[in-house]
């Protein structure tokens, strides 16, 4: 399943301000296992500083495998990440995995407004 990937794509059901990771992604499922493809990294963002790059593959968040059932569940997960609280992403490559810790930064008013817009769009988008 695909999610609209924008640099500040943090989408959530209600008006709760998440931390800013500067990460855009799409969610995929292979053999029942979910994974995220990093599609966008905002320059100077916490994700970039942590070493995450476009086309990286995330297979776990805070040690937990990804088993989302819908786009909105993915978005809810990211929207629950708070400024200042580190999040560990497990990246998979070349048959191995390693963890990177990303500390979301506070989200500016502009970013937050865009975040709300993106969420509305994702919620109104019909699932396919």
């Amino acid at each position, binding site marked *: 399943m695909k999610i609209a990937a924008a640099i500040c794509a943090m989408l959530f059901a209600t008006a709760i301000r998440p931390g800013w990771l500067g990460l855009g992604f799409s969610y995929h499922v292979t053999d029942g296992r979910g994974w995220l493809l990093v599609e966008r990294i905002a320059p100077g963002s916490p994700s970039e500083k942590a070493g995450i790059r476009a086309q990286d*593959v995330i297979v776990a968040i805070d040690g937990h495998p990804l088993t989302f059932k819908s786009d909105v569940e993915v978005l809810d997960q990211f929207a629950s990440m708070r400024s200042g609280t580190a999040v560990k992403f497990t990246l998979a490559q070349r048959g191995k995995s390693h963890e990177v810790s990303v500390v979301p930064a506070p989200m500016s008013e502009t970013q937050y407004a865009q975040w709300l817009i993106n969420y509305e769009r994702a919620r109104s988008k019909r699932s396919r």
Partner: protein
Amino acid sequence: MPVAQRSGHLHFAPGCETAGCVASHAAADVPFRIGEVAPADLDVAIPWTVTVVAPQAWGAPVELRPGAFPSTVDIAIYPAGEIHGTVDVARTEAAPAEVTAQFVSRDLTATQSCAVAGVTWSCAAPAVTLDIRIGAKSFVPHYFFDLPITSGSRRNLGLVRLERGASVSGRVSVRPFDVGDIIVELRPSTPSRSPHDLSVRVRPDVKGFFQIQGFPLGTYRISASKTGYSSAQSPSLAITEPKEIVLDAPLLLTPLSSFDVSVSPPVTAEGKQWNVSLDRASDPESRSPVRRGLATPAGFLRFKEIEAGRYELSLKDAAGSIHARRFVDVIAGMAPLTITITDVAVVGTITAGDKPLRADVTFHGADGTTARTKSNENGAFETLLPHDGRFRVDVRLSNDQILRLPTVDVRAASQEGVARVRLQLPSGHVQGTVVDSSGNGVGDAVVTLMRNGLPESDTYAKEDGSFSLYGVKAGELAIEARTHAAETGLVPLVVHDGESSEVRLSLRAVTRLAGSIVSPAGEPLAGAMIRYSSPTYAEMRHEISDPNGRFELSLPANSASIDLVALSPGFPIKITSVALPRDSIQLVMGKPSGTLLVKLGRVPPWPFVRSSGNFIGLRFLLFPFSLSPRQTTRDGPLFELESGVYAVCPEPRMSALCEERRVAPGEEATIDASAFFEMKR
């Protein structure tokens, strides 16, 4: 009382028989009796441990570190008892060589090692009432509270079952102190999608102490809750190894609060009551508004029994437009909150070229406020915006088409007090029919309009397969239709302003080709983009390799061959062609090679490139999502390619104009394609 000495002097607890107490420097094994002067040649450059060695006396060991020698060493001497017990470990485990006993009383905190012989351990202990923690490395500790130890006694603590794993311990605090219905819960810091409940719940003891064990390593938060009180939370705890985490601060439970909201004007412009919602601004566990309510016709609402903390309060009208949104810090006894709404009346139209559109229009303010409205058959709409300024606008047409418009500036004209907004979409239009192989219309197919490889707009085909897309900006596009089991592939399309482009999209059954992509060493490459096209169709699609380096291509039926471009960061771009049919495909990325710089004029149009197979649009050699810095130069894109001969041509048919270069390891080849399209301009 012994005199102060270089090595310290000793204070005595009541009851200590001074003649029986001995302090020793364990490192040098130089005992001295209490009251005696220590050896003058005490070496202060090495660490010392001062212990009490005497029958029926106990003193907490004191560590003396080089560079931090105190002028006095104070050791409180207590009458001694003994604690002992047995350890039980899993059958596959060996009993630890020692356990650690931590003693805590009103006046004492000390830690000492207790030797384990077989499965039995024992330790001297001060003859006072103690809280005792028995632990061993990588095992969950055990706690014993309010144990009276008497002088000369042997207290059996029984069987201590040692289990490996992490644990968290701490205390709760509440006033008045009543731990009655307090629940302490450990939960993953970020909501887990595991089918198993990873939460652990315990109740604190009568003193408010709690210990949680039996959870996997991870990142967690501890929360304490009690009816009628705000819950308390710990910071996020990263538990990365099997050891005990002790919370520094107690989890403090405070009584719930209430606060009042007053809105002016008291009702909406339609005369309806305001909807007020309260959402947690700081709780990562929250998933739905904490509270919702209707303000009274007088514009008043009281929120009762709210947990202290920061919230976001939203004010909505009956249509769901958000007129105000602000943060509220809820504390006990807070003053009422007054919200004043100053809406701006907006009158507008929405058209695609000159054609009025019936649509759902949503304005999004930078502060998170929104306003929703509908336009009529004349494209006219009215609404109230919470303020003037710049707004993003989303439009949903009756054909389910969603368009995102550029920011609009809303300003009320000073005289009439109304802001006039004109939303003008591009005037291009695309319409057509999605059909199956028999020519029958196929309903509910997803029809996507693409521009420069990115989706621009989409809609669904109606039951008869017909579809329509409005507000399309003029230019060269591509369009495709897909159902679950069939697709059309990308069909090129040219749209002109004010004109309607007609297209018939024929669905073809999809066949699948499994593949894998690996490094030269055979390691699976995750996140690689595999672009592929068929020479019989003007289309380029892509798949992404999964964490195991696997991917699956969807091929239109009757494909004889496909051309592939594999893009994996850290490897040269791979261009290859494969004949079909075949069972599977494996792409082995090459080792670092040379580069090809292609100087370009204005793009589009993009030239084509060919290696060993068919022509591929040069733009498909660009890394997806974000252009690699290495790929962009002032003259044009720079491509890291596998060794070989590459031809860049204006069009596949114009082979006489192709420029060929050899890419060799460690070398940079250059092709000047900037004049390719001069004749066309």
